[in-house]
């Protein structure tokens, strides 16, 4: 107690803002909360749960979330007693120019500290997953599962030409690639010299015809695209056959998010963690193994799968030797004899990973391609969902949640939300609740009127040019926001308008000053836009010379905060 008192006095005499906001104790509590939730996260995950548990959002689905909420609430109440009780601003104490920034900084720190507790929970789980699954071993296992996957036949369509990965020199690295099925081919006109009744492939909206692709040159619509290589896929083996050359699925992708079945990108070399595995080479290996009836090769791959399953205690009913024999007996084009079953993909996505067991081919009598063979012992099954769950959890913990993911993806959102919360806390301290409530009502009325105005304007602006319409609506928004902001400024800065009246416009001033920089940035973007006509059609696309970045919005928000502080000070100094 003496120590507590001493620390408090020391802070009070030197850093009143920190004393007033209970900085040391609340920060300590926040850190303890982070540590505690790290430990909880670490303990929540174990060897069994990692196979069936969905770590994504796990924090919010446990009782620990409610405990966390109660702790946050109690902390807020504890802080409020002092924070809202001691108000130098309301008592006209001289305050440094940075006083509000200090308070705002501390509140922002608190908000960030407390709303990021779930990250420590996830970091705890990540630490545990790193302990449970060694990276090197796991990547090898992923590779083993993926290698075997081509032989765990599930759907004959996985082996069809539509899934074909095209050989080099296709510029496939960052392209969108799609092919049209035969059903849709006939519906499309022949364009750009492509006969769509025959097989073709479209890469970056450039159609390439199989077989005689050398004759097709990029036309005027694609002048921006520099095609250096002329692609000839006419020599691709077995172009229209069911073949292991077409198998494009991977069960577990890594390091990207991967669980369950995924279609590999055509140029995807990464077959599951090992960059050394070249898909083209792998396809070729599968194809060769299958064509050469290489019993040992296939059996070895399946045996590796069994090893992986045993390592992670994944339920399976696999017999590599018998499976290999069955695989080599089947005719891929006509029949598919060896199948392993999967549970519903939807369940898998939603974290339901039960053991999988399916009796293959026995209930597909209506489908020609699945021909039942009498007296077969082909009840092979493997609960690969469990492995997929592990991989998914591991991948999520590594890349999709935690600090790294936050920094890469949601940091700005977190920052903006935290800033808004900190600002709300701050305003509640420095502006009377009555003023805030009345201000919110007035701001609501103004907002509703603006909404109606915006709706009517949107309805009545007859302009086919989307860009012009956006600009006009932007001008309307800007005019309204500037008008509200100006009126608030006048009411606060005018000596003739009483404090009581000026206070009513304060909340509107806050809102409008927050929107102002945002609107300005959007305005610059709109005004810097230009339209470009597609030479092959009437379509006009809108392009922007300037596109606002999150940091620019952040700077704008900070300017708004400064503006709000200035208004607050001015308002407080005003006479009634």
């Amino acid at each position, binding site marked *: 107690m003496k120590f507590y008192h001493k620390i408090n006095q020391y802070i009070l005499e030197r850093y009143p803002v920190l004393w007033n906001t209970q900085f040391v104790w609340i920060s300590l509590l926040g850190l303890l909360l982070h540590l505690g939730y790290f430990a909880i996260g670490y303990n929540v995950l174990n060897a069994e749960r990692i196979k069936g548990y969905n770590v994504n959002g796990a924090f919010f689905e446990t009782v620990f979330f409610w405990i966390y909420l109660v702790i946050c609430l109690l902390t807020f109440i504890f802080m409020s007693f002092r924070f809202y009780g001691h108000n*130098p601003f309301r008592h*006209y104490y001289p305050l440094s120019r940075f006083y509000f920034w200090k308070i705002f900084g501390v509140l922002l720190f608190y908000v960030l500290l407390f709303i990021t507790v779930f990250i420590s929970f996830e970091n705890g789980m990540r630490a545990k997953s790193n302990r449970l699954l060694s990276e090197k071993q796991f990547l090898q296992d992923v590779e083993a599962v993926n290698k075997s996957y081509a032989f765990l036949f599930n759907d004959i369509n996985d082996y069809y030409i539509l899934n074909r990965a095209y050989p080099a020199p296709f510029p496939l690295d960052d392209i969108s690639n799609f092919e049209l099925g035969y059903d849709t081919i006939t519906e499309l006109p022949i364009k750009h010299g492509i006969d769509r009744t025959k097989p073709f492939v479209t890469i970056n909206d450039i159609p390439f015809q199989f077989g005689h692709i050398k004759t097709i040159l990029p036309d005027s619509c694609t002048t921006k695209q520099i095609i250096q290589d002329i692609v000839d896929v006419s020599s691709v083996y077995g172009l229209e056959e069911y073949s292991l050359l077409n198998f494009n699925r991977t069960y577990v992708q890594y390091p990207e998010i991967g669980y369950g079945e995924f279609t590999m990108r055509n140029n995807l070399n990464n077959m599951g963690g090992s960059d050394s595995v070249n898909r083209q080479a792998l396809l070729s290996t599968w194809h060769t193994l299958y064509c050469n009836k290489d019993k040992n090769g296939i059996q070895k791959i399946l045996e590796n799968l069994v090893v992986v399953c045993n390592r992670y205690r994944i339920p399976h009913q696999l017999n590599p030797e018998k499976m290999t024999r069955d695989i080599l007996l089947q005719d891929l084009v006509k029949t598919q004899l060896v199948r392993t079953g999967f549970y519903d993909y939807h369940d898998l996505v939603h974290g339901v990973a039960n053991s999988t067991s399916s009796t293959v081919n026995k209930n597909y009598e209506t489908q020609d391609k699945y021909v039942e063979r009498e007296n077969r012992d082909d009840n092979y099954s493997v609960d690969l969902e469990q492995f997929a769950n592990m991989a998914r959890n591991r991948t999520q913990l590594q890349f999709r949640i935690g600090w790294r993911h936050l920094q890469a993806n949601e940091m700005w959102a977190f920052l903006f939300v935290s800033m808004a919360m900190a600002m709300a806390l701050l305003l509640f301290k420095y502006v009377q609740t009555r003023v805030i409530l009345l201000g919110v009502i007035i701001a609501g009325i103004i907002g509703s009127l603006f909404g109606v105005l915006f709706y009517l304007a949107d309805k009545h602006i007859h302009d086919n040019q989307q860009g012009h319409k956006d600009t006009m609506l932007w001008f309307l928004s800007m005019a309204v926001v500037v008008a509200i902001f100006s009126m608030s400024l006048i009411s606060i800065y005018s000596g003739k308008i009483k404090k009581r009246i000026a206070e009513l416009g304060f909340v509107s001033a806050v809102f409008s000053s927050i929107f102002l920089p945002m609107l300005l940035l959007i305005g610059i973007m709109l005004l810097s836009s230009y339209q470009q006509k597609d030479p092959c059609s009437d379509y006009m696309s809108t392009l922007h010379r300037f596109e606002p970045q999150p940091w620019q919005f952040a700077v704008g928000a900070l300017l708004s905060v400064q503006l709000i502080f200035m208004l607050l000070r001015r308002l407080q*100094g005003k006479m009634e």
Partner: protein
Amino acid sequence: MTQEARLQEVEYHLKQENNNLGFRMLLDQVLDRGDCKLFQQSIALTEWMEEHPNDRNGFLSKTQGILNELKQQTPANETASDTIIEAVALSKTYGSNRFQLGPVDLHIRSGHLIGLVGENGNGKTTLLRMLAHDLSLSSGQIHYRFRKHEDDYDLRSKLIYIPQRTPKWFGKVKDNLKLTAKHYGIPAADNEAWVLMMMIRFGLWKFRNHSWNELSSGYKMRFELARTFLRQPKLLLLDEPLANLDIVSQQLILEDLKMLGKRLRNPLAIVLSSQQLYEVEKVSDEVVFLKHGKPSSFNSLKQQEDKSLLVVELDIDNKREDLQQALSSFGVKQFNYLGSSYYIELEDCSMKQLLQALATHDIQVRYFRDVTQSTRRFFNS
């Protein structure tokens, strides 16, 4: 009064066994120096006094030690008593035909205490709030002479207005004072000493570890004053500060205000409104009486006043007729019974003659006050 004279006064009071007054005056001298070493000595003395409440000799020797230290030090610079606020033709109107205050002209000088008296609803609070830059003016001007290029907020940080109902504070008394001291630029190393000094000075020592809501109304007012003096403002405006205080506390606070307002270092202009006429008049340098929103400065009136007029308030056990009989030999200008006492204005009558007349007619006097020099007279006009 020079610093030397002040120290002599302290010695005199201590010698006369006016320990409380002497000690408070000593503390004022210590505060005037702003020397933390002296602060520490004073705090140590207070602690000692707490442990040895009856050791007068010890007390005297220790106070003498502090006095000697004070004498050795260079006196604090005396600040000239300049006008700090000049209010010209201030007026405030509420509604079209409702109440109007003013026009009021005021010259407020540092170190001066102005009493603001008047019946309820005559604009005392309005005037105080206008001076505090809290209420807008309908017309007129206020010149804050100390104002440089500050904004309104900074200006208000130098004007302290304490309303009748003091604001609520949370937590410990000492913590709140420390927070105030910190905001007003007192260095961290001296913070504790300054705060304890103020607590001693305003009689809050025994409440140093108490929370604010444990204080009585009187001590809450003392807390406000301690907080105020830590802020070292230019102007202190007090609205009915004596309203909730007992008679002893009223006198103590008024004395403190007078003494502290006239400190050599940072003298303070004080304007206070009160219904306690006589107490306020005793300490005020000027009294402004407000009636129907119009001011009368009693000081200027006093100068013009007919010296031969005697005004008294008295209450007697006898009948009204007996009193009238006793006063029949004087020129009675006004004779009013106000319910609890008589208000009498006599021409060509001295105090001696009046007392003799009352004695001769065997008038049993229960209460008597000479209000010739008091604003009390305005209440009856």
